[in-house]
């Protein structure tokens, strides 16, 4: 049985160390990659772009396909699931 760590409410990134969280603060719901310097959640398009790039860089996925896969994952995240047309 593994212990489930907190994951970012925007992208699902597992946050274990304080520096993984926005502002280095473990009470924040989002990770440092999904937030700006003030700890505010970045716009959807920026988060989508960052996540899609991850697929491209690590596995050479086609950029458009990477965007579609990232959008499919973000659609279930608390930060974006109520967003019209995910």
């Amino acid at each position, binding site marked *: 049985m*593994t*212990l489930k760590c907190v994951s970012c409410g925007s992208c699902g990134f597992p946050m274990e160390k304080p520096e993984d969280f926005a502002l280095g603060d473990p009470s924040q719901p989002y990770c440092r990659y999904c937030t700006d310097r003030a700890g505010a959640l970045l716009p959807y398009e920026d988060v989508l772009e960052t996540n899609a790039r991850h697929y491209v860089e690590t*596995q*050479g996925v086609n950029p458009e396909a990477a965007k579609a896969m990232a959008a499919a*994952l973000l659609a279930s995240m608390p930060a974006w699931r109520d967003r019209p047309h995910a």
Partner: protein
Amino acid sequence: MRQASRKEQKDATQRRLVEVGLDFFAARGFANSNTADFAKAAGVSHGAVFLHFPTREALVLRVLDVFGDRLSAALKAAMQGEASFEGVLRAHLGVLRDYEPFYARLVQEGPLLPIRARSLLFIINASVSHRLKLVAEAEAAAGAMRKFAPHLLFNTWLALLHYYLANRDVFAPGESVLSAKGDELVAHFLDLVRKEAEKP
């Protein structure tokens, strides 16, 4: 009070259905299984399945999410202390071996699954690829390994594993193909990527 305990009961049933789902889909696959058989395996009525999951896809996605969380946590824990390229390969292999029946189904049926399920597998693999890239760069800098584009290095390793997983019934009938062939695959891959001078 009554309400809370009913909710707890519902949550417990849902968790149990997910656990059954992990074994059920590993054994039966996603495309060729139905909710009536799933209900039988879980020991509940067919209608009860839909009380917890409105559609078959919702059930499949929930099971995949739980599997993804576990696989991802196990990979992270296994790779954390590995500083060598071989160590990361073996850690990756070891975790996939632990989760082999379900993971092999994902490999076999991945392209037929909803895009969210496929993206889950790719995002998990992204973390392995990233880890492999870091140790590969360090070993290449030390002159022990040839240099590769990170995505090609990872995809080549994954292609090897996935080929054996997709055909596990003929490579290792009745047993874990990664247990039976794992050492051979690691040795072969290391032989491909190591510089001539480093090869034994």
